[in-house]
């Protein structure tokens, strides 16, 4: 395993997701201790001191997000776990939902106590059927055992948790789009200001945290900030669940301690590339993070600082390994088709830009590319960067700019010759 573990600390069995098994792993002991012995401020202070970063993509410090909520404003506050894991290449939260749903619930109850939240929601993407059923069953178990509802564990603390299913929309993974959806509307993201911690769900202060971020709260509160900081690096404390896919020998979810060497993870822990191919490129954190070439991965450690220095980011932990021989033009085409399909259509640059880019790359792939097409793609990407309501416009641009910056020759070849230099292959090692 790539470093020490915080979450994947137990063997996954046919029953490891149940309450009984969770209790055997000291489940809900931390909640009980918090409710009996700690104040709201204690919890937030510990989470802040631990330096827990958001694990959903933006890496915003969780403690800082929490501390914006004014506990004495006399209005309801809401907490929402973001389980709308939709960033292509990402399936790590699914592991928690399927195998450790009670860990999420206990953490949410602790967070709800800290933030004085009466109603919590888990917004789970509509396609996740098994994860939803596991989570819903866990919620029922928690209610039956008195961990949810009124007078939790005999204290005055009361909290309800609802599992809320999305219905197929990538932008609902963006916190404000998620809240629009949770209000029973289209998943239109919202302009900031106001921040969601000031006006979120139904205009009430709302904290939206990624599933994995929340799942770490129990451990931090149980063992203390110093213990959490003993994992990872000083600036990137803790671990990251990494889901790796693509041309990789052993795809799946791994818990990677921050600071772990990137190529060691790919080649040793994941068994290298399919068919022992060479690493052409690596997408480190979902397709919206900038791609790294195989050479750029050398010497990089898996943490926020090292990946940023290499020109990319941890993102959502959705790693995609790309073998030598893969056609990057076709790869970008698949990505741009996705962004075009998922743009909510609310604001101008993303609504028009994603379709525009998709049509340009379709034309290139159809052999009708023209000089200037690559410049157009770059210009559209630039005009989406930071100009849209949510980060989706930026994301489409990052993916495009990342690939064009490093694999431009493949695009120029296709435009000049009307065909791919790599036969348009996305699969490698298979004679298609």
């Amino acid at each position, binding site marked *: 395993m790539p470093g020490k573990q915080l979450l994947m600390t137990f063997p996954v069995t046919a029953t490891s997701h149940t309450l009984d098994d969770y209790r055997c792993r000291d489940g809900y002991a931390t909640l009980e201790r918090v409710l009996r012995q700690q104040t709201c401020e204690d919890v937030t202070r510990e989470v802040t001191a631990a330096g827990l970063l958001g694990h959903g993509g933006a890496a915003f410090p969780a403690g800082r997000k929490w501390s914006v909520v004014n506990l004495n404003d006399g209005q309801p506050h809401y907490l929402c776990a973001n389980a709308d894991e939709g960033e292509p290449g990402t399936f790590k939260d699914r592991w928690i939902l399927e195998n450790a749903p009670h860990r999420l619930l206990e953490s949410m109850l602790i967070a709800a106590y800290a933030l004085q939240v009466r109603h919590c929601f888990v917004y789970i993407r509509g396609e996740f059927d098994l994860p939803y059923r596991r989570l819903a069953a866990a919620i029922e178990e928690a209610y039956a055992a008195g961990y949810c509802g009124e007078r939790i564990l005999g204290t005055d603390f009361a909290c309800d948790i609802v599992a809320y299913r999305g219905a197929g*929309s990538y932008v609902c993974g963006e916190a404000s789009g998620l809240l629009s959806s949770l209000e029973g509307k*289209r998943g239109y993201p919202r*302009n*900031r*200001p106001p921040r969601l911690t000031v006006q979120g769900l139904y205009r009430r202060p709302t904290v939206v945290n990624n599933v994995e971020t929340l799942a770490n709260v129990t451990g931090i509160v149980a063992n203390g900030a110093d213990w959490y900081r003993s994992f990872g690096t000083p600036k990137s404390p803790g671990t990251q669940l990494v889901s790796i896919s693509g041309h990789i020998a052993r795809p799946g979810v791994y818990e990677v301690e921050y600071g772990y060497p990137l190529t060691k993870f790919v080649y040793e822990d994941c068994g290298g590339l399919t068919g022992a191919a060479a690493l052409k490129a690596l997408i480190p954190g979902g397709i919206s993070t900038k791609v790294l070439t195989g050479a750029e991965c050398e010497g990089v450690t898996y943490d926020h600082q090292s990946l940023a220095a290499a020109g990319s980011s941890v993102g959502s932990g959705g790693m995609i390994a790309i073998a030598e021989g893969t056609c990057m033009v076709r790869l970008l085409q698949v990505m741009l088709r996705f962004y*075009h*399909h*998922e*743009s*909510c*259509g*609310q*604001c*101008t*640059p993303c*609504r*028009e*830009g*994603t*379709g*525009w880019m998709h*049509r*340009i790359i379709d*034309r290139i792939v159809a052999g009708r590319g*023209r000089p200037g*097409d690559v410049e*157009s793609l770059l*210009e559209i990407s630039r*005009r989406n960067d*930071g*100009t*849209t*309501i949510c980060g989706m416009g930026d994301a489409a641009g990052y993916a495009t700019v990342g690939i064009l910056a490093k694999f431009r020759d493949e695009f120029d070849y296709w435009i000049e010759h009307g065909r791919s230099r790599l036969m348009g292959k996305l699969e490698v090692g298979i004679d298609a």
Partner: protein
Amino acid sequence: MPEIFIDGHPVQAEPGQSVLQVALANGFYIPYFCWHPALSVAGNCRICCVQVEGRSWAEISCNLPVTEGMRILTDSDVVREQRRATLQFITLNHPVDCGICDKAGECTLQDYHYAYNGRPSISLEPKVRADKFHALSGRILLDNERCILCSRCVRFTREKSKSHALGIKRRGDESLLRAAEDHALDTDWYSDNIIDICPVGALLSRSFLYKARVWYLQPVPSVCPGCARGCAVDLWVRKPQWRLKSLAAKQNTSIMRVTPHGTPGIDGPWICNKGRDLARIFERPRALQALRKGQPVEYGVAVVAARKLVADAKRAVALVSNWGSNEQLTAFRDRLGTRFTVYIKHDHMPQSGEPVEDDFLIRADKNPNTAGAVALFGARSDRAAEFPADTDLVLVWGEGCDFTRLPRGVKIVFLNAYLQPENGHADVFLPVTIQMERPGHYTNGDGVVQAFVAAVAPPPGVADAATLFAALAASEVIPA
């Protein structure tokens, strides 16, 4: 009061204002499509970008709260480039069919293209096609290709008219404005406002479709007589220099459309659909011929006959019109007031299917100047049963009087503008002008006095009622 600097100039802002609001209030123009002063902030068009000094990027000003000492640039290189890029996006799939678009000449997109972009599209891709002439309601057509999805119309139906009649369906660049399937837009009595607030030519009025290029028209300030709210409106008629012999006479003089004048405090920028349809009231067949017991007579002859009836009456009752202007009502009081027992007649009552009253603009009194009439004559009922028993003459001014309910045997002098069956039943009938043919003032239900001006010349053979009252009171006949 925070002080901010726009393009280097210090301006005072109210706390809570956005940069866009402060800029517009202080004479700095920032372009905007989706923002509207009376609607919530959507922040979706992205054209209103500005640069905060010291930052390398442009951000939208409609959702940027002012902070003390903030320094804003509205026309920096960064802003100019971003605006141009945004216009490239907006026009990417826009058909640019200004040549056949009713909005041309008053289209925000057209103006901004010339002001801020001015370049041909850099796109090589074919435009995404969408629906043309999609019927949103019986009154409004939608051109989805022209629509820039600013959502102003959607927000209007949710925040103002509250019909929730519109929404945006599907997503991405396939998003389409659509009417709710329960046809709520057909019963939204304020629906036509969305045509005005559409910044492009996407929403089209069926009644104005292809009727005139707007630059041939001029707005004439007027007051809607549809109810006691008295919304300030503009009646759009052909400019005198563009009245063409080749056009039918009616087209040269008719009301082509009605829009809100936007008087602060009375109706804001909105009017109801009844106001849009003033032509249906004003352009009914007109009475152009004076009558005596149903027989055509010279106007002067009719006036003499009427004057004699007035002079001979022992007990004369007048039913004055609450569609009369303050000037006309005053003329009646000054010239004839002492000779008549005066009742205020309600010319119009709510029609079937018409909303009687709501909590937005529409008032139950379907007449423009009841308050003006009451101020002069007091609030007396116009019910015939309450007329003095010895009434021998009734002067009826305006519509809405059922002659069969007048006391039997009384003489009737009738002043009316429209061709109606009652005209022939009066002892003397005198055709008069309508609101759009003369200037005047109305006092609305809240006591606000508003002016209207003449939009067109009166047809030959009719007189202003104010002139007639003088004639009826005078000893000499004044020719019409």
